């Protein structure tokens, strides 16, 4: 069973619709103590980093997610949900992240947000054994390419050598990551739930 974390910040409905299109079983995690029951935890996040972080703490999820990571449970982040995996988020005056990945979420070097479709390619062989051995997918696809949708003001950077770190395919943003992955953690900066058919194929590949 896949669990979606809902702390009242972000577009959960789109994520639910996305999982329905992928024809997978999911439920909203309504009790933070039951996190260990899920084969995959999805952490979507959109909006203000401070509000997101505060709500994670308010619902007891901040610490429970750390425990889930220690147990080696697979956790998938989307957008702000990926940024919170870092040690530090620059937004809203500076926020402590979950620290799953050695890195930061910093302001993009753009005047406005990065809201656009950009090219994207992915090879499943870049996923770790920790992730793949728990995989439930029946998809045999290992590579894909196409385009994905970004909508963010802050981006993820990491200097951790143990991390799979794929860059955004745009020269002005090439210091920021489109995907970040370490052991049981995968984070997308873009929105797979709004990346049309590629978003569904990608999820089925990594599920």
């Amino acid at each position, binding site marked *: 069973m896949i669990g979606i974390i809902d702390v009242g910040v972000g577009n959960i*409905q789109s994520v639910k*619709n996305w999982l329905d299109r992928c024809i997978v079983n999911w439920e909203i995690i309504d009790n933070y103590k039951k996190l260990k029951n899920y084969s995959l935890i999805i952490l979507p996040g*959109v909006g203000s980093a401070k*509000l997101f972080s505060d709500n994670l703490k308010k619902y007891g999820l901040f610490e429970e997610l750390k425990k889930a990571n220690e147990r080696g449970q697979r956790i998938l982040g989307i957008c702000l949900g990926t940024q919170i995996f870092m040690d530090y988020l620059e937004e809203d005056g500076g926020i402590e992240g979950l620290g799953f990945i050695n890195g930061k979420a910093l302001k993009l070097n753009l005047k406005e947000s990065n809201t656009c479709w950009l090219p994207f390619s992915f090879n499943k062989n870049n996923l770790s054994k920790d992730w793949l051995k728990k995989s439930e997918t029946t998809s045999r696809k290992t590579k894909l390419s196409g385009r994905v949708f970004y*909508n963010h003001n802050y981006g993820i950077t990491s200097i951790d050598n143990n991390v799979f770190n794929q860059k955004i395919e745009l020269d002005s943003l090439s210091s920021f990551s489109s995907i970040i992955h370490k052991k049981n953690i995968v984070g997308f900066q873009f929105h797979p739930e*709004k990346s*049309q058919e590629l*978003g569904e194929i990608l999820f089925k590949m990594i599920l």
Partner: protein
Amino acid sequence: MILFKNGYCYQSYGWNLLRPLGKLQNIVSHLDKYLIDDITIIRPIRDNENDSTLLSDLNEIKKLKSSTPISFGGGIRNINQLHLISGLPVERFVFSSALFNKESSLLRAATDLFGRQAIVGLIPFKLEAQVSVFNSQINKFVSVDKLNNIELCDEVILYDCESEGSPNGFHKDVVNKLKINPKNCVFSGGVSDLVNSFINNNKAPKALAVENSILHREFSKSNYYEKL
């Protein structure tokens, strides 16, 4: 761009006639299949309306299933209404009459809730001797100097009311008159044949919002990509 009101969609050109278009989910499902980059759903609300129209329309938006980014707006005029839109399957919110408010509390509250990247301004305009811009809350075109809070918008849609429905009538001069950087703008109203003119052009906008005439033939989006 789609107009949506009282649970039904209307053609996004020829506003005065309010030509019916069809059911929202059917339209959105097909725009998904046509791999459109973004769907902008606007409620054409004039003056002040009673809340029951808003609630029933929001219920329809809430049920919407789409794999394409959606921008939605129209009739969100006070902070109390922001909580009504927070659970919607929508990426960005479009504000129009809020750009005429003297204070910025609505847009700031929306930024806190949804993030700055989710705030889009909509400025319908006419360009005659002078530019005038449409304030939907008073249902009138007014002078440009009544505009406020544009800097709080991540992106601005400039809608040419006189050129809507035409293939190439958009008045590109408007960005100079409004002193807005075209790179933060989406041009709409008379843009469908303008793609060529914006290739390798440093005055090109961020995007073009085509009217629902994109539904007039199968997968007509490929016509635009072929030009690019």
